[in-house]
C-alpha cells in the first residue's frame, strides 16, 4: 500500500530530495546571488566545526521578501533552513511552517538584540527563528551638500530646504510599510490580534489626542509640498542618481546607491519629526530584521537547527556585515568598531528607540497602500477624510479575506 502511495505521489507531485541515513543533506535558502560567497564560507566553517558528520549542504536563492510565499506553497518541500524578512514571521508562524528553537534557545536570546529576539518570538512566547540581521528597517538618507545636521531633525525644515533648492525629499507614501511611521508617531495604533490573522487599528479614531483625520491632513500638506516626492525604492534610486532627490526614506539596501551618488556628502540619520495638529511629533517606524527559520518537516531537523544557529552566530553575522554590509542583530557583532562606523547602521540604531517590531496580518497592506496613494494624489475624489479612514480601517481590520 505504501508503495502504491509513493508511486502515485511520484506521478502527481514533484518529489523532494531523498536523503540517506548516514549522510546529512540540508537545503538552505538565502536571499540573493550576492550572498553566495558569504554562505559558502559559513558552510565551510560549519563543516569544519562538525567533522564527525558528513554534511551535504545545498544553497538555493529565494528572495527574503518572497520567502513565505515559497515556503507556504508546499511546506513539506521547502528548504530545511531559510532566510526571511521579519514581516513574514507571522504568516509562517501561523501556518506552522517554523520549527520552535528547542536546541539552546537561551544562547540565541542572550546573544541577540532585544528587538530582534522579539521579532523571532511567537505569540506563545517561544523562540521560532534565529535573528540574522537588524538592518531591515528604514531611516533617512540625506546629502550634506544641502542639509545641516540640524535641518534633518524636522521634516518641515527638510521640505523647505529641498523646495528652495528645487529638489525633492523622497518618501514611499503609497506603501503600507512606510506610511505606518506617521500614524504610529502620532500615537495611533495598528497591531495584529491574538488570532494572528486579523488586525486592530484605530487610525480613524476621533477621541485620541491627535485624531486620525489630523494625520491625514498633515500628510496631505506634506504630499503637496513642492519639496516632496512620493518615491518607492526604484524611483528613489533613479532620483538619487539623477540628482533630483537629495534626501529620502529608504533602507540599507539603497545605501550603496546613495553613497556612490553623494560621495563624501552621504549621510544617514534617524527619521525626523513632522507637524501634526500643530505639534512636532517624532516619526515612528517598523523595525526590520532578517530571520533564519527551520522547516519542521526537515528530515534532519536537529542538524538544521545547528546550522541555523551557526549561520547566525557572532562570527557569521560579522562576516555577513563585512561581505554584504548587512547590520548584525548579534549584540557583540553590532558593538564592533567597523559596524559602528557605518552611517546607515548607526542611523538604524538611533531610530530603534522609536521603532516597533512588525506584527502585521496580511489584510493591512493593500488598504494602507491605497490610503497613501490617495493622499499622494491629493484626494482626487474629494472623499471625506473620516470616511476615507473608516474605509481603510475596515479593510485593515477585515477578517482574513472572505
Amino acid at each position, binding site marked *: 500500500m505504501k508503495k502504491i502511495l509513493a508511486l502515485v505521489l511520484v506521478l502527481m507531485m514533484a518529489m523532494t530530495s531523498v536523503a540517506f541515513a548516514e549522510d546529512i543533506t540540508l537545503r538552505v535558502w538565502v536571499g540573493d546571488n550576492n550572498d553566495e560567497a558569504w554562505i559558502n564560507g559559513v558552510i565551510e566553517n560549519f563543516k569544519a566545526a562538525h567533522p564527525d558528520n558528513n554534511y551535504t549542504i545545498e544553497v538555493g536563492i529565494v528572495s527574503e521578501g518572497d520567502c513565505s510565499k515559497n515556503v507556504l506553497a508546499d*511546506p513539506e518541500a521547502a528548504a530545511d533552513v531559510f532566510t526571511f524578512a521579519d514581516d513574514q514571521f507571522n504568516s509562517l508562524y501561523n501556518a506552522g511552517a517554523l520549527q520552535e528553537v528547542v536546541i539552546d534557545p537561551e544562547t540565541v536570546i542572550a546573544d541577540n538584540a532585544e528587538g530582534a529576539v522579539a521579532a523571532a518570538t511567537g505569540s506563545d512566547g517561544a523562540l521560532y527563528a534565529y535573528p540574522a540581521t537588524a538592518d531591515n528597517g528604514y531611516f533617512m538618507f540625506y546629502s550634506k551638500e544641502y542639509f545641516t545636521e540640524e535641518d534633518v531633525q524636522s521634516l518641515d525644515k527638510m521640505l523647505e530646504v529641498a523646495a528652495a533648492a528645487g529638489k*525633492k525629499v523622497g518618501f514611499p507614501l503609497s506603501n503600507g510599510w512606510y506610511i505606518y511611521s506617521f500614524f504610529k508617531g502620532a500615537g495611533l495604533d495598528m497591531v495584529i490580534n491574538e488570532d494572528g490573522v486579523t488586525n486592530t487599528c484605530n487610525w480613524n479614531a476621533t477621541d485620541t489626542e491627535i485624531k486620525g483625520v489630523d494625520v491625514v491632513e498633515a500628510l496631505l500638506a506634506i504630499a503637496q509640498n513642492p519639496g516632496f516626492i512620493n518615491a518607492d525604492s*526604484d524611483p528613489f534610486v533613479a532620483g538619487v542618481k539623477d540628482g533630483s532627490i537629495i534626501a529620502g526614506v529608504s533602507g540599507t539596501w539603497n545605501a550603496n546607491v546613495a553613497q556612490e551618488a553623494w560621495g563624501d556628502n552621504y549621510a544617514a540619520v534617524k527619521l525626523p519629526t513632522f507637524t501634526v495638529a500643530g505639534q512636532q511629533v517624532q516619526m515612528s517606524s517598523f523595525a526590520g530584521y532578517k530571520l533564519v527559520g527551520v522547516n519542521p518537516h526537515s528530515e534532519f*531537523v536537529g*542538524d538544521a537547527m545547528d546550522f541555523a544557529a551557526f549561520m547566525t552566530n557572532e562570527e557569521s553575522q560579522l562576516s555577513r556585515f563585512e561581505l554584504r554590509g548587512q547590520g548584525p542583530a548579534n549584540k557583540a557583532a553590532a558593538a564592533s568598531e567597523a559596524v559602528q562606523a557605518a552611517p546607515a547602521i548607526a542611523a538604524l540604531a538611533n531610530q530603534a528607540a522609536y521603532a516597533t517590531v512588525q506584527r502585521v496580518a496580511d489584510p493591512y497592506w493593500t*488598504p494602507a497602500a*491605497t490610503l497613501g*496613494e490617495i493622499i499622494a494624489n491629493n484626494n482626487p475624489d474629494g472623499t471625506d477624510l473620516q470616511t476615507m479612514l473608516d474605509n481603510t480601517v475596515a*479593510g485593515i481590520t477585515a477578517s482574513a*479575506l472572505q
Partner: protein
Amino acid sequence: MSMTQQARGRRSGLARAFSSVGEFFAGTAEAFRKGDAFTRLSALISGAGFIARGQIVKGVLKTLLEALIIYLIPGFILPNLSKFGTLGTVVAQKTFDPVTRKNVWNNYDNSFLILLFSVMSMAVILVAVVLWMKNMRAAYELQQTQERGKHVNSFRDDVEALLNKRFHVTLLSLPTLGVVLFIIIPLVVMILIAFTNYDHDHLPPNALFTWVGFNNFKSLFSMTAESSFGYSFGHVLAWTLVWSVLATFTCFIGGILMAMFINNRNTMGKRFWRTCFMVTMAVPQFVSLLLVRNFFANQGIVNTICKNIGLTDWLFGIGAIPTANYIPFLTNPAWARPMIILINIWVGVPYQMLIATGILMNIPADLTEAARIDGANAWQSFWHITMPYILFVMGPSLVNQVVANINNFTVIYLLSHDVYVTQNQYMANANASEVDLLITWLFGLTQDRQNYKMASVIGILVFVVCAIITLLAFNKMIKGDKEESFQ
C-alpha cells in the same frame, strides 16, 4: 439518406449520449441474463469467460487488472474516500526527539492530498465500473461467437488487430490516459477547491481545510463593509471585457492597416519594413514590456522629457494630472488603462501584420481586378472584397484572441505589478485594482494571500465567461455552410 437517419441526426447530442449509455447498461444486463456459466463467472473473475474459451493470455491480463483494482481498494481508495466528507480530522502534531534529533509527527491528515486522492479514487472506480460492464459484454459476445462456430481470436490475432484494424485504440490510449491524469483530475480538484475554505488560515499540511458549500460564491457576489469582493468582481469583470475587446480589435485593425501599407504597390522597400517589424517580434515580449514600463515610470525617461519640455506643467495647469512632478502614465486609472491598451497595440500589431500579410497575398487577384474594371475605387474594393475576405479567414482566430486577451496575464501583470497602487478603497480591501484582469487578480490572491478558495471561484467564472463568448461567437460564425457563402 432515409427519413429515420435524418431524424436521428437531428436529435441533440445530449439525448444521443443518454441513449447510448442506456444501451450500454441494457447490453450488460442482457449479457448476464443470457450468458452461460463462464460468462456469468466473468462478473466475479473478469478473465473467466476468456480463459474458458481459449483466450488464455487475454483472460489472465484481465484478471490481473481486476486484482490490481481490488488491491487498491483497501490501501488507497477506501482510506481516502472515507475522509472525503470531512477532508481529514487529524491535525498535524509533532514532538522533537532530543535523542535522534528528529521531529516525530503523528499520522496526520493532509486535506489537499485527501481531496486529490479521493478524486483519483473516484476516477479509478468509474473506470473500473465501465471496464467491468464492457468486460461482461465482451465475454457474452465471445460466447456467441463460439456458439455460432466462428473463429475465436487468439492473442496474436488481438495484437495484430490493435496494430491494424483497431490501430486508433493503440494510438489514443496513452494520450487519453495523459489527459485524464494531468488535465481532468487536476481540473476537478481545482473546481472542488472553490467549495472549501482552502486559504491562508487553512494551509495543509499543518492545518486542515473542509467543505463550506457555496459560501465562497456568496462572498463573491455580496458587498459588505468587511468583504468587497462583490464590488471588485463587477469592476474587474467589466474592465476585463473592455480590455479584451479593445485589445483584440485595435491590434487587428492596426495589423491590417500596416499590412496594407506595406503591401501597397507604391510602398518602397517592402522587405525592409517587414524585417523591421519582424525584429520587434524577435525580442521577447516580457523584455519589451518591462522596458516600456520603466520608460513610462513616474521617474522614467518619458516623464523626464515631458517635464523638460514643459508638458507636465501644462497638463498640471489644465488639471489633467494630480501632481506637477510627473505624468502618472501607469499609476493613475485614467491614464494607466489607455496606456496599457496603447502599449499592447505596439506589442501586438507586428504579429497581426504578419498574419494579415499572408491573407492579403492570398486574395485572388481576379476579384480585385474585376472590381477595378467595374469601376470600384480603392475604398470600395477594400470594404467589399478585402475586408470580408480577411474577416472570413480570421473570424475564428479573432474570437480566439478575445478569449486569449481575457486571460492576457503577461501584458497587464508586467505593466502594473509593483507599480500600480489603486486609489479605490473598496477594491484595495479585496486585493484588486482598476487595471487588474480577472486572471491577474486571481494570481495576486493565490500568490500574495494564499487565498486558493477565492482564486478557484474566480477561475470557474473566468471559464464561464470564456465559454459563453466562444460558444456565442463560434455559433454565429462557423455554424452552417459559411464556406460557400463567401464567393
